[in-house]
């Protein structure tokens, strides 16, 4: 009961932007040998137009499942998720998913260029050759892969492969970008660079981003809001508004008192790892 009260406390009273997606009373369970295993319970969440929402939780808290439900890759056992006014029943080009494991999500037989073109060529009305070329050029520049256009994914570093996946998702022209621990497999330096790039892209495009992570600092550093989840079954334990100046800075922001307070606050809502 106390935790539910905390949610109420930290949730803002006024809604600053219209909602793009709303999750109402969502439960998700999977069949197991002796009945059902509950993965998510009583999830209620509004995602606002243009915001950067970080979702944080320990392993097994169902945060990836929540992202998959938003993506339409799984369907809730009960409750509804509405996106731009209609109920989510299947995946859509408007909600692009950046998978954690980029090695499995890229097409290894296509070059960087080819991987991006996949998303352009399969549009309901594909762009003509010249438009396509300029779109590809812009996307490559956006993620810093211009030099690597003709290379195959296996010839790229992990960070570059993840950049490529992001570029392909952007080529879908989504209104909602869903990122599932996208930097989990990268080294700390690459990670920081990519955090700043994603923040920049989000700002430039005005896209709404849902970003899953298990790293408190990453969640705060990137987010306009941070949603903390507890485990077994997965529930939302707190939603925190992050009021830090943008653009954020890897050194200064992380040393900011407010940043440390948020970190302190969120820490209480996360279960200890076992």
């Amino acid at each position, binding site marked *: 009961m106390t935790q539910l009260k905390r949610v109420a406390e930290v949730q803002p009273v006024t809604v600053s932007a219209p909602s793009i997606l709303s999750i109402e009373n969502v439960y998700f369970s999977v069949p197991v040998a002796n009945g059902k295993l509950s993965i998510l319970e009583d999830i209620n969440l509004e995602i606002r137009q243009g915001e950067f929402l970080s979702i944080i939780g320990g392993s097994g808290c169902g945060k990836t499942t929540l992202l998959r439900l938003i993506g339409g890759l799984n369907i809730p056992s009960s409750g509804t998720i509405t996106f731009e006014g209609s109920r989510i029943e299947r995946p859509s080009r408007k909600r692009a998913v950046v998978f954690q494991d980029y090695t499995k999500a890229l097409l290894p037989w296509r070059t960087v260029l080819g991987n991006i073109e996949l998303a352009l060529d*399969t549009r309901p009305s594909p762009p003509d050759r010249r438009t396509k070329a300029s779109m590809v050029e812009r996307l490559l520049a956006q993620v810093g892969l211009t030099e690597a256009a003709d290379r195959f994914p296996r010839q790229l570093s992990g960070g570059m492969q993840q950049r490529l996946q992001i570029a392909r998702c952007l080529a879908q022209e989504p209104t909602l970008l869903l990122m599932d621990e996208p930097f989990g497999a990268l080294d700390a330096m690459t990670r920081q660079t990519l955090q700043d790039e994603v923040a920049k892209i989000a700002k430039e495009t005005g896209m709404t981003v849902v970003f899953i992570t298990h790293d408190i600092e990453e969640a705060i550093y990137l987010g306009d809001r941070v949603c903390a989840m507890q485990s077994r079954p997965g529930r939302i334990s707190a939603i925190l508004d992050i009021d830090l100046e943008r653009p954020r800075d890897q050194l200064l922001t992380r040393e900011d008192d407010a940043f440390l307070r948020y970190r302190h606050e969120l820490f209480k809502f996360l279960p200890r790892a076992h």
Partner: protein
Amino acid sequence: MRGLLLPVLVLLIWQVVGVLGIVQSDAMSYPSQIALAAAGALSDGSILTATRQTISTALGGMAIGSGIGIALGSWFGISRRAGRLAQTSVEVLRPVPSVALIPLAMLMFGYGYGMSISVVAFACLWPTLIITKSAAQQVPRELLEVSDGLELNWARRLVLIVLPKIVPNLFTAIRLAAGIALIVAVTVEITANPMGLGYALIVAQETLHPDRMFAFLIWIGTLGWLLNAGLLLLQRRLFVRWDGA
């Protein structure tokens, strides 16, 4: 070059044994005789005609059989439901020895290409179907979800995602089918169909021409080797970029 030492030695001994008449047998011939018989078959054109017939049968049957195998295999691999529905039928039909279908094929098509090709196609269908199916089932979930996220219909998913992903496996399947196709084509010719290299073997045997028989036998072996080597070469050339995929 050292690898040639043993075969050359064997040929020499074989030649000496043959010339000296140490072994007396209707099946006996020796390298120089075989070479002469081969030259004869080449000059009268019989070996070329027979080769063309056998190769057409093998390739035709292979194309039809592996085409159907790849189509069904990718369907059963992508659609779990179709795969389950087809499982029993596949398991029942697959173990039927393809040569056991020769009488049926003969009734249906009579002598000629139709009969041989249909039997070869049947033989090639199963290995390609099973390899394709299991490869299609192993396409990473992420790739299929990428295709769902791009709202691809089944045809585009097949052409843009699944088939390119499993192309190396398909090529292995085709290489396997090529070997089977040659074996079955020759078998059908030996047992039932009066055409091609298999029939030439039988004629040589029945007219007591072991030299000619050996010539055809060696040629069939060479053909099989060439077919596989050619496909391997093609595979290496074409699929460099799939490495590590």
